[in-house]
């Protein structure tokens, strides 16, 4: 009888233990790093390791990066020193979409335009715009002397109103062609880029492909899905268009150039764009610092990455001579190209 009781007790204890193990293992939790330099370093490395989408394309050995930067982490380092080390670690991927945001500074890699000629001057743009230009939805526009519309598009950070676009394109109706000056456009909403590009096609066109990560592995991706540009529902432009670019054309603006190259009557003039073909996601470190990283890669119609920029149809740079004569070489090239059509 005593033996049976002991056996019964053992079974009950075993069952309780199993239930406890099941209950504990059933909690859906994420590993938590300490809020100190080491913990923040490990958290950042892991977030990038599991989410960043361009390791293979950029040829970055992320484990090797861990080995070399872990040595630079010290428990006594200040926030500024930590940001410097973490910022340098992130800069290894040479991606303008990879940033570390703190309340006092931003870790960044802007080599995609800082290492190249600007090919842009506010002074020259102001000369071409003059004082009698229109402003709508944050965009400045006017008709140049040779009856060419000039549309300055410095950003896609806000949504573009369909009514604004209708008014702008109707204003340009008498013009023989349109120049869209995209230089310095660092991107913003991809939907705004689509809205504007949709005014330059009368039919749905394939403009590229995109995919997303399906797991933590560096090569866990979905299949490529086509990106289609739908024609805009308002006024659509039917005449020649020239898009002006420089190295600071990035992200959604880079996508806009990609879309426009698939539309009829479009020529891209200027410098190569800055790239930024990974739709960025965000996450957070234990310290509260935000990290942004490329998560969904996008490609052109030939399934080639546009992460490192898009070549123009006609490469032109600002010249010193023209600058001294108050002439923007790239705008002048666009005008002579249009006048020669």
């Amino acid at each position: 009888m005593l033996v049976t009781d002991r056996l019964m007790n053992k079974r009950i204890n075993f069952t309780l233990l199993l239930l406890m193990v099941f209950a504990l293992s059933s909690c859906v939790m994420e590993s938590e790093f300490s809020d100190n330099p080491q913990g923040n370093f490990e958290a950042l490395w892991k977030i990038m390791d599991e989410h960043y989408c361009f390791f293979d394309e950029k040829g970055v050995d992320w484990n090797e990066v861990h080995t070399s930067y872990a040595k630079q982490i010290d428990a006594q380092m200040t926030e500024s020193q930590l940001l410097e080390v973490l910022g340098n670690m992130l800069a290894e991927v040479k991606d303008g979409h990879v940033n570390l945001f703190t309340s006092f500074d931003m870790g960044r890699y802007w080599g995609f335009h800082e290492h190249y000629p600007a090919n842009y001057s506010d002074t020259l743009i102001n000369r071409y715009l003059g004082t009698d230009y229109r402003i709508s939805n944050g965009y400045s526009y006017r008709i140049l002397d040779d009856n060419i519309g000039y549309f300055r598009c410095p950003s896609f950070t806000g949504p573009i109103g369909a009514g604004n676009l209708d008014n702008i394109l109707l204003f340009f109706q008498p013009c023989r062609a349109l120049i869209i000056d995209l230089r310095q456009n660092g991107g913003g909403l991809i939907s705004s880029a689509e809205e504007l590009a949709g005014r330059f096609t009368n039919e749905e066109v394939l403009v590229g492909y995109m995919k997303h990560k399906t797991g933590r592995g560096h090569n866990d991706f979905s299949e490529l899905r086509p990106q289609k540009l739908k024609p805009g529902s308002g006024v659509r432009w039917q005449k020649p268009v020239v898009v002006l670019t420089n190295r600071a054309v990035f992200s959604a603006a880079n996508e806009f150039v990609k879309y426009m190259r698939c539309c009829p009557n479009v020529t891209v003039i200027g410098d190569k764009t800055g790239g930024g073909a990974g739709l960025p996601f965000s996450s957070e470190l234990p310290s509260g610092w935000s990290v942004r990283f490329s998560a969904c890669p996008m490609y052109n119609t030939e399934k080639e990455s546009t992460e490192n920029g898009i070549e123009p149809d006609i490469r032109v740079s600002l010249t010193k001579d023209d600058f001294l004569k108050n002439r923007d070489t790239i705008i002048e090239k666009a005008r002579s190209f249009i006048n020669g059509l």
Partner: protein
Amino acid sequence: MRMLTMALGLLVSIVAYSQVTTDSTRYQSLERVRLFGIGHTDILDTYLSQEKSTGTELHYLSQTFSRHADSKITREMTHHLFASSTGTRGNNNSLLTAIYGFRLGCYYNLDFSSPSINLMIGGLMDGTLGGAYNTRNSNNPAQARIALTIDPAARLCWGFRIARFPMKLNYAVSLPLIGAAFSPNYGQSYYEIFSKGNYDHNIVLVFPFSGPQLHQMLTFDFSLFKTTFSFGYLGDIRQLKANSLKYHHYSNAVVFGWKF
């Protein structure tokens, strides 16, 4: 589109169900409960952040229990609204969450007269609609919470008196057993899902191994000034592991309200 159809179908069924349950003359018992709650919540959603978010959560519960005359069956309809503004270790108030839960239930009654105990065993159709918004993120700023599950459920009510005063202890528990939920894929943006229509395993299976879930509530009823008041504890565990993403939403709240 499928999700919208599903949501509309559920809405129609709730409206139809509520119209049936408001006809009080046909019932042996009809009990309505209104409860307000405040408590602590702990939310993790790795789609939005690797950090868990904690803070205060507010609840509102509306419950109706109806039992036909000469019937052993009780029907339940519950609307549960809860909302929170929570923060991580490093950022206060960085996550805003609002969820509407509805449950349609059916129980078989086991009545015992001495002591006065009523045990109800049955099941629920358990729906969730809501979302969370991270105030700091770029292309992954929000997460939708849509789910429909079948839950085994039980309720235990013990009526007793202290002096002349009737009182009641109620315990209700339900465990989502099987169902479906919406989830973006691991690194999939909502732009890709909704603007491009690129679906990729966005309807996922919910079952105990995708993350055990539990809804429970313990309340104490007492009468005062011809009104039955109710207060107690509400516990809600929602979890999901799908598409390599992790989600948990733990709620513990004190509730107070009345019955009529």
